[in-house]
């Protein structure tokens, strides 16, 4: 369980002034929950994720995971990056095993676990390929396998499907659902897509910008498992309704901040 209390983060902007990226964020993520975080760009959702990952410091508040305060990156968490962040010189096998290698796992065990996760993400037969030989979707499968290989209890995903084309994105969403249904772990998933937030999440955290704070937490009343028939789910009334609601809220936020753009 992740408990975030009164989290505040500000940094010095380019003009020398202080930019408040996160303001008084309170959030609980329960065990094995799939939480999606949705918001306009610049709302601090990636900052929030990096704070949970322990990659950047914050100014106020606490993040506690299973009773332990976050002081830096830890073996209980792993991250999937928007730009994949794969080592271009390493093979798929070595990329997937990279986290294990950093943690001192021996070669035999490392490769065995890497191979089994390569199988999970459907990349068997590509073990010796290097990232530049793979499509974007395949590269992100490597990124997901690498994150899962260290057996985290919390998976942090920063717009992981933002850089792949629409069709690949849909396939990856379905596969992520089915992986999560089988492996059961806590996921915090950042996205700017309403459809993605609803399709994947148990709850959608809606954030607003300047300063970044939580505007609303919207439960998603769609039943699980969802991976077997995503198409039917997307045509269901509940899905359409909640997506429309999220869009209304997002549009309100845009109007608050940039009235001229929406009015004109």
């Amino acid at each position, binding site marked *: 369980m992740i408990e975030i209390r009164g989290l505040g983060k500000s940094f010095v902007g380019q003009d020398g002034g202080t930019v408040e990226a996160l303001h008084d964020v309170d959030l609980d993520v329960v065990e094995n929950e799939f939480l999606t975080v949705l918001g306009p760009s610049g709302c601090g959702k990636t900052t929030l994720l990096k704070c949970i*990952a*322990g*990659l950047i410091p914050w100014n106020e508040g606490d993040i506690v995971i299973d009773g332990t305060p976050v002081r830096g*990156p*830890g*073996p209980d*968490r*792993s*991250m999937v*990056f928007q*730009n994949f*962040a794969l*080592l*271009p*010189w*390493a093979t798929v096998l070595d990329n997937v095993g*990279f*986290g294990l*290698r*950093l*943690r001192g796992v021996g070669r035999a065990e490392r490769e065995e676990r890497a191979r089994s996760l390569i199988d999970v993400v459907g990349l068997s037969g590509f073990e010796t390929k*290097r990232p*530049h*030989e793979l499509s974007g979707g395949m590269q992100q499968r490597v990124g997901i396998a690498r994150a899962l290989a*260290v057996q985290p209890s919390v998976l942090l995903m920063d717009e992981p499907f933002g850089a792949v084309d629409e069709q690949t994105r849909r396939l990856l969403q379905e596969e992520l659902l089915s992986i999560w249904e089988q492996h059961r772990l806590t996921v915090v998933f950042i996205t700017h897509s309403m459809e993605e937030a609803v399709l994947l999440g148990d709850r959608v955290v809606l954030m607003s910008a300047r300063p970044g704070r939580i505007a609303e937490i919207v439960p998603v009343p769609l039943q699980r498992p969802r991976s077997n028939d995503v198409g039917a789910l997307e045509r269901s009334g509940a899905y359409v309704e909640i997506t429309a609601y999220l869009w209304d809220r997002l549009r309100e936020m845009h109007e608050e901040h940039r009235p001229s753009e929406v009015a004109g």
Partner: protein
Amino acid sequence: MTLAAADRAARRAPRGRSGPRTGKQPGALGRLLGSSLPYQLVTFVAFAAAWEVYATVWGGLLIPSFTETVHATIGLLVSAELWAAMYVSNQALALGFAIAVLIGVPAGIVLGRFRWLERFADVYLNILLVTPMAAIIPLLVMSLGFGLASRVVLVAIFSIVMVVVNSRAGVRQVDPSLIEMARSFGATERQIWTRVLLPGAMPAIMTGIRLGVGRAVTGMVIVELLMVSAALGGLILEYRGLFKAASLYGTIVIILAEALLLISAARWAERRLTGWAQTDSARSAR
């Protein structure tokens, strides 16, 4: 050929070369025409012929013909004099270049990682880049004498700039998100160096080493020609003094051959070590 044999042949097709493969493999003739070797041979033959004609028609004592140069080169190659000179020259080259790599690579990496050091180092790097090195030879000889030391130091400062500048660029062009990724998996600072920064910078470091080899050969010859008058440079001066034009040309041919050989070796090592980067359009200096 049976089907099984064809299958085996297909499996024997070259592997290991990464990157997308286009269609079918070209035959031996196609590969030969595809490489630049035949074209280089053609230009070389044309050059040799033009040289031969010019030297026999207009040449005299000072311009040997192509065939005379070839004869002289062969003569030099079997003489003890040349190999003694080669040994002495290459001592300075090997020591000087080794120093350049041993100091230059770590220095470049540190400069690339810790940018504030730039303020201290930049001016010296610029000086090394633009100074006509010939100008500092007298200075070196005054402080270090005519021995091996001044030649070694000159070779080192000739080549170290390329090594430092490219190593620095190599570390800088490592994607910062890879460092963040490694940190998210709990990498220590040491692991970030060994697992991310060094492998990521390796292609540029190898490029720096290859360019540095070229500069080192230049430095080796220049110092011998201008001041120390030893070894290969000494031979050149001696043959010039004796009007042994063919031998003079032969010595230069041999120096050129050595430089080409060293650079090819460096390029080969570069390919072997950093094949993954060859398809990267992000390569800066080539």
